[in-house]
C-alpha cells in the first residue's frame, strides 16, 4: 500500500490504522456520509482498503454492524469530505449513500446501490443488480450484466451495453439506452429526449415515455413486436412498413411488426416518435 495515507479506525478494535480490513463472504460494504470523489473498485482479495488520492490523508471510520462494514464519518452530522479509492472484494455487494458525491464503480460482481443528492455517478464493468438514485448529476452505466435501475431527477442518464432488464426514470434529463439486451425495459422522462437501441425479445415488454421531448427507438430489422404509439402533439416516423390501427379513442395507434412477439409502447405527449431499423446507434 505504497503512498497510502490512511487512518482506519475500527470501532471493533480488531485492526490498527493503516491496515486493510478483512471482508467475509456475506458481508456488505457500505459507504455513508461522505462527500467528495470516490472510486470503488473490485479486486480479488478478501479485504477492503481505502487509498487516498495523490497521497493525501484520508481519515474515515470503519464500523461493523452485523455483516455490514460501514465506511463513513462519526455521525450523520459530521459528514466528511474525502477523495479516495476504495478497494473491495469483487464478490461483496456495495451500498453508497452520499450527499455531494462523485462516484465511480468498477469491477463489482455482486451488485451495488448508490443513493446520492448531487454529483455524477459512473458505473462500469459490474454484475448483479444495480440501483442508482440521484437528484442532481449525470448517471452513466456501461458494460453491466444484471438488472439496472436508475432514478435520476435533473440530469442525463446514459445506459450502454447492458445484459439485463433496465428501468430508468428522469425528471428533466435525457435518457440514452444503447445496446440494451433485456426482457423488460422501461424509460420515462418528463422533460427530455429518449433514445433506445437494442433487440426486442419475445414476450418482453419495452415501454418508453416522455412528456416533452422526442423518442427515438432503433430495433433490428427482423423485430417481432406489437407496437403501440401514442402522442398528443407530434409526428411519427417509421423505417418499417406499418399499417396503423387507431385505438378506440384518442391519439393512440398500433401496428404489428413481424409476428408481434414482443410488446413495444412509445408514448410522447409533445414530441416526435421515430422508429428505426438498425443494430447500432443511428
Amino acid at each position, binding site marked *: 500500500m505504497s503512498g497510502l495515507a490512511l487512518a482506519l479506525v475500527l470501532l471493533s478494535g480488531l485492526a490498527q490504522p493503516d491496515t486493510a480490513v478483512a471482508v467475509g463472504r456475506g458481508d456488505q460494504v457500505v459507504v455513508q456520509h461522505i462527500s467528495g470523489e470516490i472510486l470503488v473498485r473490485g479486486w480479488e482479495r478478501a479485504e477492503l482498503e481505502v487509498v487516498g488520492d495523490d497521497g493525501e490523508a484520508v481519515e474515515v471510520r470503519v464500523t461493523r454492524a452485523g455483516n455490514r462494514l460501514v465506511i463513513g464519518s462519526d455521525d450523520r452530522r459530521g459528514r466528511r469530505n474525502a477523495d479516495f479509492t476504495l478497494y473491495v472484494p469483487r464478490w461483496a455487494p456495495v451500498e453508497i449513500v452520499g450527499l455531494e458525491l462523485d462516484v465511480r464503480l468498477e469491477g463489482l460482481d455482486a451488485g451495488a446501490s448508490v443513493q446520492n443528492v448531487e454529483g455524477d455517478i459512473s458505473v462500469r464493468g459490474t454484475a448483479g443488480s444495480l440501483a442508482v438514485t440521484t437528484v442532481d448529476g449525470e448517471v452513466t452505466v456501461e458494460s453491466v450484466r444484471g438488472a439496472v435501475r436508475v432514478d435520476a431527477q435533473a440530469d442525463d442518464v446514459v445506459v450502454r451495453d447492458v445484459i439485463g432488464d433496465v428501468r430508468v426514470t428522469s425528471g*428533466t434529463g435525457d435518457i440514452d439506452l444503447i445496446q440494451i439486451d433485456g426482457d423488460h425495459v422501461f424509460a420515462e422522462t418528463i422533460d427530455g429526449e429518449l433514445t433506445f437501441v437494442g433487440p426486442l425479445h419475445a414476450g418482453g415488454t419495452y415501454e418508453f415515455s416522455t412528456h416533452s421531448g422526442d423518442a427515438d427507438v432503433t430495433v433490428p430489422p427482423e423485430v417481432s413486436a406489437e407496437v403501440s404509439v401514442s402522442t398528443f402533439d407530434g409526428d411519427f416516423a417509421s423505417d418499417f412498413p406499418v399499417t396503423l390501427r387507431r385505438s378506440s379513442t384518442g391519439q393512440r395507434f398500433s401496428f404489428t411488426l413481424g409476428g408481434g412477439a414482443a410488446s413495444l409502447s412509445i408514448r410522447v405527449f409533445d414530441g416526435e416518435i421515430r422508429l428505426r431499423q438498425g443494430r447500432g446507434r443511428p
Partner: protein
Amino acid sequence: MSATHEEWILQLSGYIDGGLSGDDRSALEAHLAECGECRQTLADFRSVVARAGELGDMLPARDLWPGIAGAIGAPVSTRGAKVIALPTVSGAGQAPAGIFLSRPQLAAAAGILMLISAVATWTVGPGLAAVDATDVATAPAQESETRFASEAAEAPPSLAEELRSLESALGDLGNGLDPNTLHIIHRNLSVIDRAIEDSRRALALDPGSDFLEEHLVRAWERKRDYLQSAVRVVEWNG
C-alpha cells in the same frame, strides 16, 4: 338567457377575467344570486387562480390525430422514415364540438377550472388554439422554498392522500436541506406540475382520450414517485 348549468359555469372564467359583456355579466350575476352551486364553483375558481403561481407551457399547437386519420388502414411507405405530416391547429374546421364539464368533475379537479379560460378563448377563435397564459390571473410565486404547495386535492383519489402526506413530510423535513438541493427539488416539481397541467388541458380538449387519461394519471404518479425520492433524500441527509 336560458343557459344550461354547464354554460353558466363556462362563463365563470370570463367573469373573473372581466371578459364578459355587460349583458352577459349582468345575466351571470343574476344567476349567481340564485345558484349556490355556481357561487361555490366561482369561489373554487378564484381559489385556484390565486394559487396558480406557475402555469404550464402553452398548449401544444398541433393535434396528431387529424394528420394520421387519413393514414389509418393505409400502408406506410418503407422508403426511409415515413413522416406523417400533421396540420397546424390554426386551420379552420378543427374546433372541438364543445366541452361540458360537470360540477363534480370541476370540484374533483379544481385545476381544470383554469381550463375554462381556454374555453373562453375558443369562443373567439375555434380550434385547438394555444391558450394565452396571460388570460389567467396568477398569484405571485411562492416565496418559501420549504413549503410545497399542495394540489393533492386535485389528484386522482387513489393518490391524493399519499401526495398530501408526502408534501407535508417534505415540507417538514426540508428545512434542513441545502438551498441548492431545495431549489432542484422545487424546479423538478414544477416541471412535473407543468406536465400535469399540460395533460389536464389536453384532456379537456379531448375528454375521451384514454391515452391522455393515462398520461395524466402517470404524471400524478410521477409526482408521487418524485416526492417519495425527495423525502428519502431528506431522510438520508437529515
